[in-house]
């Protein structure tokens, strides 16, 4: 199943929402299961984002003739 990328901000906000909803006693079990699955996915995504280790540094260059932009790695 493909997941569309979400921002960390969205993930964290949604997780807060999910926890609040799960704390509601009137929740239907079926919805709880769905929320549980979604929560696990978002926690994984947030964790993955935190574990990203590589900072990418690119230089943006403008072609003098065409005006087009291209990027290339910048040597630190």
């Amino acid at each position, binding site marked *: 199943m493909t997941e569309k990328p979400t921002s960390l901000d969205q993930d*964290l906000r949604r997780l807060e929402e999910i926890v609040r909803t*799960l*704390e509601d006693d009137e*929740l239907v079990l079926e919805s709880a*299961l769905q929320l*549980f699955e979604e929560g696990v996915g978002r*926690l994984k995504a947030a964790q993955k984002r935190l574990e990203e280790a590589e*900072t990418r540094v690119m230089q943006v260059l403008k072609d003098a003739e065409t005006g087009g932009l291209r990027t290339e790695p*910048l040597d630190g």
Partner: protein
Amino acid sequence: MSGTEEAWTVARLARTIKHRVEDDFPAVWVRGEVVGVKRYPSGHLYFGLRDAEAKVDCTMWKFAAARLREPLVEGTEVFVLGTASVWEERTALRFNATQVLPAIGVGAQAQAIEQVKQRLLADGLLDPGRKRTLPPYPSRIAIVTSVAGAAVRDIITVATRRWPGIELLVINSAVQGDAAPGELVAALEIVARLERIDVCIIGRGGGAKEDLAAFNNEAVCRAIAATPVPVISAVGHEVDVTLADLVADVRAATPSQAAEFALPDRRDIAARVAVLRAGFVSATLDLLSTRQQRLTRTRDRMGAALLDRLRGAERRLLTARGRLAPALARHVKRPATRLGHLETRLRPAMRHRLDRWEAALRQHAAQLHALSPLNVLGRGYAVARARDGRVLRHVADLGEGTQFTLSVADGTVVARVEEG
């Protein structure tokens, strides 16, 4: 007052005067007119500073004189930075100059900056209300600065420490000199064309005051205001605030500080995620155990009710047998046999009914157990759902060829009914 027997030597007097003047004398800027400039072959420079009321002799040692940007011109107004010193040999006071700036030029520059500021103010570009807030979790940051400067390295260092995984896009531009304003504007135009940029940092490493001119340039300020994403200025000067700082959404004193403003600290976020994870797990467990308790209670009540009915039936059966036996004994020739027959028929019938009740009870209990979410989550049951998320419970929902998703413990697969 001391007597003549305690008379000071001249040298002591000179030394005392020197100490009194020089000790703790702060470095000060003095404004005055340059007079009597003499440059000696040694490289030292002598001149006077005067205004309408006073005159002070000044010296400028070779190393300081060598750094003068322009030669001292007789009769010009200047600012001179220096400290008071006493030339011991003659007990003569000299102002020891270390730096000289043309007063007229500085005044004109300040005036020009003020005029630009007024125009920016008039156009509302300095309104506090138009300051944009920085996004909490940026993923792409544009940096407008000189790739040869220290600013880029400082920002990379801080970014790598705080928020690795960030993408930094550097747009090279001169940050001082005549070409700087035009290049900064062009670089900001490139930033506006880039996609998915969250924040822009424009800046340079530290430097002398004169080098800040590009960041007081009107076109640069307007380009900053026109940038579609929040801009952090990092001109690298703690004291002087440039117009670029005033137009930018956030002012950082240094490029390192700009990176700190732009990026969250992964340790803070990791702590927040940990709190959320704990809340999530405990909320889920609470929810499941509440449901479990409810199911258990229901099951127990149903079980008790069924048992009651079974006991009632058993009692009725026994009573019936107790009443049947004497009646049969009275009316039938072979009562024992008839009763025996009846009992033989009744027993399996009753047994059969009891078995059915028991099976029903078991089945209900099993269903309740199967519904328990702990099992669903933990023991490999699968949930079949239609594409709209509806749970499929009946064979009727699963016609041949129906596509549905099957959720198992570690994920979801798409499935199709082969035989309906």
